Structures are given as structure tokens and as C-alpha cells.
């Protein structure tokens, strides 16, 4: 496992505000996917976005990526009010997104995927410079890719995640959005991706990370923002208890998770039952 570089704690001292969402709403027909959501992200900060299925996490990320248009609300990026009509605009401003399905072309090699849509020298591709830059990016992330000239189809899940993250860093973004970066990954690959996120933060980028895995969230997040049914439902530090998070996510002390916990306790010690 690669060593994590020493970094000062990201919340020390005032940090530049990278992104500020105010009053974000998004309706799909009669369904309100997002209602009046606020969100701030600072430079060098990892913000985890958690919530149940249908809480609006992915909708929020897609709005920031320029895939969806908000129904109402404002986006301030780097202190300026911006509109994101399409993915290219978001990318141009410095918002890079790593989607859950990674969106890699399996028939192309690693270099082609990293530079997809941003090839150097369009009429006579500069393969040498692209390959060198790809290796530099991958080495910065301490990635372990055997060859950048093999099609992405031959890579493992963790390696593909690395390629997707390396691609998002190519444009020198200020904010990077990760949608479920550790879902579908094994234990070792998950640890590598979490290391990767810390290295990205150490480079002074703002990171928004969506995850269902509370362990991963607490391992890297500086702040945990909970969404529930499309609304803000609390903000926690990385030291928040599982109980508090689950309560905020499900919206009640009495929920399926707590009921299950009570039931298990009861099964393990039947004499407690009154």
C-alpha cells in the first residue's frame, strides 16, 4: 500500500469557499427530487453526501456536472454566480465528475480514456506527450496500472476507478465530484481509493463524495451532509455516531435499522426481554 503524504488538517484556518449552493430545487414532473438544498464546499475539504435511496444525492451531483438543470436555486463557484447548461461548461469551469458507472470506453486504452474529448493536437494526435502525462498523473496518484496501452476492459474495478479519477484530474479542476467511488470495490481497492481521495484533498481540491458506506465516509470526510427526501437533514463531523447518522438519514429514532438492532440484542440475551 502506498504511503499517505503528511497533510495538515484541512479544517485548520479559513479556507477558500469553492462551491456554494443556495435553495437548489429540482422537479421531475410532479416529483420533487430536490427541495431548497444548501451546500458549501471549501478548498481542501472532503464533503460526504449521504442519504437513503431517492434522497436526491445523484440528482444534486448531476446538476453540478451540468447533466441536469435545476428548477430553481443558485450555484456560486469560486465566488461567482454560474449556470451549468452542459457537461462541457461544468468541466471548463473546473468541476470534474467521476460517475458511478465510471463512463469509460472499454474498447480504448488508458491513455485514450484519460484524454477522451481533450486530446492533444487534434489533427495529429500527440501520443507521446499524452502517454507521458498519463503516466505522470497515475504516478501522482500512486496508481498501479500495468500498462497504459491496454484496453480498459482488461483492468480491475479498482484500476478503472483510478483511471476515472486520473481523468477527472487532467483538467486541473477545483472541485471533484465522486459518485459512489467505493461501491463494487474489494477491501484493498476501497482502501486505495480512499488514499486516492486523501491525495486529491492534499492537492487543495474540494471533494464531494457520495457514499452509502458509513465507514468509508467517516474515514475520509471532513463534513457529512445528510439529505433526506430531497431536503437538507443535518450536518455532522467525521466523529458523529452511527446512530446519529442513521437517524438523520432515515428521519426517525424509530427506524428499520434501530428496530433490527433491538431485535438482535433481544435475541442474543433473551432474559432482557420483559
Amino acid at each position, binding site marked *: 500500500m502506498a504511503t499517505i503524504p503528511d497533510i495538515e488538517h484541512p479544517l485548520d484556518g479559513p479556507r477558500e469557499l469553492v462551491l456554494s449552493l443556495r435553495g437548489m430545487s429540482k422537479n421531475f414532473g410532479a416529483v420533487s427530487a430536490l427541495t431548497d438544498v444548501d451546500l458549501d464546499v471549501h478548498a481542501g475539504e472532503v464533503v460526504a453526501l449521504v442519504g437513503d435511496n431517492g434522497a436526491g444525492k445523484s440528482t444534486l451531483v448531476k446538476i453540478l*456536472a451540468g*447533466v441536469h438543470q435545476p428548477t430553481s436555486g443558485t450555484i456560486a463557484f469560486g465566488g461567482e454566480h454560474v449556470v451549468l447548461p452542459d*457537461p*462541457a461548461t461544468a*468541466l471548463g469551469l473546473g468541476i470534474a*465528475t467521476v*460517475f458511478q458507472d465510471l*463512463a*469509460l*470506453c*472499454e*474498447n*480504448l486504452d488508458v491513455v*485514450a480514456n484519460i484524454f*477522451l*474529448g*481533450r*486530446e492533444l493536437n*487534434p*489533427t*495529429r*494526435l500527440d*501520443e*507521446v*506527450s499524452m*502517454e*507521458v502525462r498519463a*503516466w505522470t498523473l497515475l*504516478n501522482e496518484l500512486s496508481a*498501479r*496500472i*500495468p*500498462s*497504459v*496501452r*491496454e*484496453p*480498459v*476492459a*482488461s*483492468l480491475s474495478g479498482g484500476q478503472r476507478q483510478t483511471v476515472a479519477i486520473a481523468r477527472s484530474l487532467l483538467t486541473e479542476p477545483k472541485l471533484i465530484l465522486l459518485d459512489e467511488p467505493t461501491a463494487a470495490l474489494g477491501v484493498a481497492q476501497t482502501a486505495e481509493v480512499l488514499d486516492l481521495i486523501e491525495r486529491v484533498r492534499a492537492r487543495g481540491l474540494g471533494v464531494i463524495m457520495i457514499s452509502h458506506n458509513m465507514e468509508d465516509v467517516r474515514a475520509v470526510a471532513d463534513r457529512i451532509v445528510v439529505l433526506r427526501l430531497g431536503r437538507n437533514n443535518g450536518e455532522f463531523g467525521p466523529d458523529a455516531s452511527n446512530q446519529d447518522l442513521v437517524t438523520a438519514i432515515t428521519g426517525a429514532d424509530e427506524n428499520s435499522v434501530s428496530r433490527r438492532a433491538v431485535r438482535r440484542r433481544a435475541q442474543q440475551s433473551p432474559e432482557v426481554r420483559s
Partner: protein
Amino acid sequence: MTGNTQPGSTARLLDRSDERYKHADTIGSTIRAFVDRVRSGDLGSLPVVVGLVVICTAFQSLNPVFLAPDNLVNLLFDCSTVGVISLGIVCVLMVGEIDLSVGSVSGFSSALVGVLWVNQDWPVAVAIVTALVLGAAIGALYAFLFNRLGMPSFVSTLAGLLAWLGLQLYLLGSSGSINLPYGSPLVNFGQMLVMPAIVSYLLAALAGLVVFVTGYRMAARRQAAGLSASSLGRMLLKAVLVTVVLEFIVYYLNLGRGVPWMFGLFVSLCVVMNYALTRTKWGRSMSAVGGNREAARRAGIKVRRIYATAFMLCSTLAAAGGILAAARLASSSQQAGTGDVNLNAIAAAVIGGTSLFGGRGSAYSALLGIIVIQSIASGLTLLDLSSSLRYMITGAVLAIAVIVDSLARRSRMSHGRA
């Protein structure tokens, strides 16, 4: 730049730092890597080479005229017309779409050239340009139907197949065919013009030289950037092989009438298309759209524009193929572009190694594939078989080619090569 600046034998190249990856450095390991690739389903042009050897042995033993220089020269004349159409098919297959109307478009453009040039007395160049522009317009129409109305390309082009055939019949009117004047430059180009021997030898040598120079310059740049580069010996070997093979082919054809200029035009179109598909941003985008359309869109590629260029190139090349076919036959007739033209063009691309499933292909697959198809056609004609048998055999060859493609694709997926 990590390792290459350090002195001593421990210096490591940027792309050679992972010991898990097998590198083919020697000639022996290159051959082993090739065998591995083929076994995993990455067949490249191997089926074509095997197919050609089988076809040549079979037909040569049945009729010794088959491999005679003059028969091969004729074969190359015939290849060029459908080959150009097939080159367009490669473009649409690259993005995972299909154009079933290329035969009709070629027939329509040959009729148009006949009407405008012979009946209306337009200058021949203007008639040709008009046909090419209309071909591009047909492609633009398909692109509009596909991009804006979401019409699957196989339906829109199937409708086109009928519509353009109707237009072709309408243009030709009751006479049914227009004879193009013998002795005109266009007909000479399609029937007679061959390169002077010295020009054909020089062009073959030039190809070897280009292979060597581009390889050498690439290796020098890679070395300067700290990447692995192929050795001088290997590049020389490759260049010499290319030169020797091409010079032999040219020598053999020059025993007959020589290398047709029309075939030269087809090959140069293939070379240009190959460059565009492999060395430009447009070509990279074509592969990306064919491999994963959504990924390409999210990477900021203008997917609709890529589809439009693919459809337009395809039907423009189909129109060009139709004009060449008219020149070859010295007539624009109701039969032009009908029958097996459509399927031969598609089969050639697939046999040459372009996948029907998108994202994989090469311009040279049109060249190799059409030579296979025309060899079969020429061999069967020499055997004096009826067209009923010819259709059945060509159909079987197409089926085999697609089966090989599907099986190879399945094998590639299980071996981690999309």
C-alpha cells in the same frame, strides 16, 4: 520523468515500471504475444489472410487462370468500386450503426452522373461533384432522422434503400440505361488506365520508406520522453518486409496490364481514412462513440456531430463508389447498385475485421475484405457458375465472417479485451 535520467543499469522507463506486465521486446516474444492475442479473440486481419490462402488454393487448383496477372488486374478494377463503398460502411460500423442503402445510393449517383453528363451535357466534373454532394445530403438526412427523431439507422436506411432505388429508376426513365461515351476520361479511368511500371514500383518503395520514417521518428520521440521504443532492427525488418511484399505484388501485376489507377485511388482513400481514424481526435471520438456512447457524451464529445460525419462520409463514399462502378461498366443502368452490392460492401468491412457491434475497426478492413469477396466472385465466374450459386456461396461467407466476429467478441470479453 521518473527513471530514465538516472545513470546506471537500474534506470527504468516510465512505461516499464510494472513488472506484472509482459513486454514483447524480442522477435520471439513478439510472436508469442501475437499468438496470445489471437487466442484471446483479438484476431485482427488473421481470418482474412487464412481466407485468402484457402480461396486462392481452391480456385487455382480448379482453374489455373485465377492467379494469372491479368485476372488479378481485373479483380483489382472490380475491387475498387465496391471497396470505396465498403470504406464508408467501416465509418458507420465504427460508431455502431449501419447503412443498408449504400447500394441504392451508389446506383442513384451513377444514374445522376449519366443523366447530367450524357443527357444534359453538363461538364463531367460538375456532374460528379453534384452526385457527391447529393450523397452527402442523403447522409445528412439519415443523421437528422437518427439524432433528432431517434429513428434506428437500420430502419431509416432500409427506407432509403427503396427510396433511392425509386429515384434511380425515375431518373433513368423508360430507356432504362444510359451509355457513357467510350474514350472519355471517366470511362478510361474505370476500364483502362494503369500506372506506368516505374510509378508503381516507386509508390511501393515509398510505402516502405514511410513505414520506416514514421516508425523511426516515433521511436526517437518516445526515447526522448523516457518511454520504451521499438528497436532499429525491428523497424528495419518491418519496413523491408512491407517493401518486399508490395514490390512483389507490383511486379506480378506488371506482368499483366499493371496496377490500375482506380485501385490506386481506392488504396489512397484507405490510407487517408486510416490516418483519420487512428491519428486524429475525430477518429478517437468515432471509436469512443462506438464503444460507449454515454461515456463519450460525458467526456464532452459532440456525439451527434460524430454520428452525422459517419453517416455523411458513408453515403458520400457510396456515391463515389457508384460513379466508379458506372465508369467501370461504361453505363448507368437500372441494375447499378442492386443485387449483391449492398451486402458485399457490408460483408467486406466485417470480413476485414470491423466489428458489427461498434468501436472496433480499421480502414484497411475494407481493402482486405473486398479482396476476399471479389476473389470469390471472380473465382466463381471463372468456374462458370450461375449467379444463384454465387449468391448462396457469398451469403455463406458473410455468415461465417459474422460468426467469427461474434465468437471473437465473446472471447475478447472473457479475456478482458473489449
